[in-house]
């Protein structure tokens, strides 16, 4: 186990700069996820840590040693590939043994470690099978066993769950978390799925166009996204954004959305007064918009508006409801008791204590600035 430190890491392909000045510290035993849309550079970053991709600029430290020039095999890393990259001609135990065999472990040790890895990942009984005779979930576990058996200082996982079906993915997610708890190894995980990132990690590093948009604990990035990108990326369904203008009305600050106005809670006033009169973007998550009839809290009541329901997507425990207010469309996550039906009118309440206000130009969060 070790710390991994990226200091102003950059990557260029010819003239194309895909990673820019990336700074990230992964602590000993920590589970950190690099997450972002495809093409954001997360896999490239992981491959640079693994040593499969050359680092164009900046320094990488593994266990406080500069590692830029260290070949992959001496970095103390293990990597699980998106495709698993199991060797098709080797049985499960031969696959697991490969790294140990290369490192010239004595045969008795190898056999012992294979047994350990097989039981750790519940693969007993599959030792002699070939990868082609395994299910997707089993292959995935073999890939993990193969990575873990060499006792890596850092475990690198590149979208390991993306080839599994939805149900299996949930199961493996829990299994990964249990495994990390048990082994306590340093893990760097890459995924494009923000739910996976949030549920697994100690901290998530959200990447956007080759830069780190925000690093923090899952709840921290959910509750206080630093910019519009993070706000829109984290959370499902995505946050609603409204173009508006910050104005003063009587004693309080109000966001004028042209068709309706929303009053800001008092505690945000000091942070927002600087932006008075400017164009801003209001962000509010679907789960912070309620049906007025079912809302218990009186204090929201100032911030209501009448809408027409457009589309309803029932999930069972909640309904994803898309509503329209003249030209403005937004999404609310409502309780099934609302009995939302298309084309019905309803009144919604905005919980403005959970809102975010972004500067139109810089796209940074005015309320939760870093």
């Amino acid at each position: 186990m070790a710390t991994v430190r990226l200091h102003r890491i950059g990557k260029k392909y010819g003239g194309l700069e895909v990673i820019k000045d990336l700074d990230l510290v992964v602590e000993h035993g920590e589970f950190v996820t690099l997450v972002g849309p495809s093409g954001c550079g997360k896999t490239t970053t992981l491959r640079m840590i693994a040593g499969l991709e050359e680092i164009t600029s900046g320094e990488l430290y593994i266990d406080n040693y500069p590692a830029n020039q260290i070949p992959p095999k001496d970095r103390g890393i293990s990597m699980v590939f998106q495709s698993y990259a199991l060797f098709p001609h080797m049985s499960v135990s031969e696959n697991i043994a490969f790294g140990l065999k290369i490192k010239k472990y004595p045969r008795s040790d190898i056999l012992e470690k294979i047994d350990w890895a097989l039981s750790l990942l519940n693969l007993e009984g599959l030792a002699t099978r070939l990868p082609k005779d395994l299910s997707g979930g089993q292959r995935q576990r073999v890939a993990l066993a193969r990575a873990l058996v060499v006792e890596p200082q850092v475990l690198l996982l590149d979208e390991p769950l993306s080839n599994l079906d939805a149900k299996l993915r949930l199961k493996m997610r829990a299994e990964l978390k249990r495994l990390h708890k048990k082994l306590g190894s340093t893990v760097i995980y890459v995924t494009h799925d923000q739910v996976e990132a949030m549920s697994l990690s100690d901290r998530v590093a959200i990447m956007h166009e080759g830069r780190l948009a925000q690093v923090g604990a899952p709840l921290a990035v959910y509750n206080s996204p630093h910019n519009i990108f993070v706000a829109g990326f984290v959370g499902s369904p995505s946050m609603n954004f409204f173009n508006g203008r910050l104005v003063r009305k009587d004693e309080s600050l109000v966001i004028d959305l042209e068709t309706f106005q929303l009053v800001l809670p008092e505690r945000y006033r000091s942070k927002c007064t600087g932006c008075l009169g400017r164009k801003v973007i209001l962000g509010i998550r679907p789960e912070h918009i309620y049906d007025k009839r079912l809302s218990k809290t009186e204090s929201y009541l100032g911030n209501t508006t009448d809408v027409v329901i457009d589309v309803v997507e029932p999930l069972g425990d909640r309904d994803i409801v898309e509503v329209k207010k003249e030209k403005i469309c937004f999404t609310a996550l409502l309780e099934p008791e609302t009995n939302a039906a298309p084309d019905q009118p309803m009144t919604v309440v905005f919980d403005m204590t959970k809102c975010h206000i972004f500067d139109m130009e810089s796209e940074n969060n005015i309320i939760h600035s870093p």
Partner: protein
Amino acid sequence: MELRNKAINLIRKNLFCIIILAPAVLYLLGFLLIILFKVTALALTHVSPEGALFPTAFHFIQLSKNPEFRAALVRTVWFTMIGTPLELIIGMVAAFLVAEAFKGRGIVRSLFILPLAIPTIVTAIILYIMFDFPGGHINDILMGRHAFFPFRVISYPVDWRGSGFFALMVSIFGKVWRDMPISMLIILSGLQAISKDQYEAAKTMGANAWQTFFAITLPLLTPAMSTVLVLRSIEVWKEFIFPFILAGSYPLLATLIERAYHEWRNPNEACAIALILLALIIVSTILIFHSLKWLRMRLVRI
């Protein structure tokens, strides 16, 4: 009556399949089974003034006593044992060369395919002229008669076709050169089927280039290699044109068949040689197949 209707129905239902398969079935019957049957019958028949004898091993016994046949058999075995691995190795080297992406790879690939486009007889004649005696380009070059190679390797011209060793080596050279594209293409397709991820996984696990080659590339290439070896060894066993043109005095089994028929005027013996060649090919194919399977198991053992 009912049975007849059933049969007609069955034919009607499968008419399309029957039409599609008919040419292949006719081909197998006409060009394989009937000929094989005829050849076997001829090989087992001995015609003498007293009448025809069937079945008899007479020709096989005669052949086993014939020093020319024995020499040809030994030559053929050597020819195959040298030629087949060479075909594989040259094909692999060429495939590895063009597998990596580099500038002008397309041109190099096309150049490598070129030998296939030249008629075999033309290649054989070119080699005949190159290795002629006492003139011939190779002799000229080795004697230092050209400015670009001013070293006098030999003092007297070599009679390449007059020596069994050289004549067969030149034949092997021609054969391997001509067949290289096929071996290369088969190996290349095998190489490209190995995903990049596997090499990277091996790299992160600490395998160096040699270990990766022996633990991953080679075992995953064994299906392609076995295809090359089986196909090419059959071709080398029955090779005719190159030894016919370049090693006329040193017949292999395939060229001996021609000699038995034309010079000895003994079609029965020619058929017997053909059957022996066929048996050799079948045995060697089985051997190659199994030894590669063994090699594959061997390379990945814990």
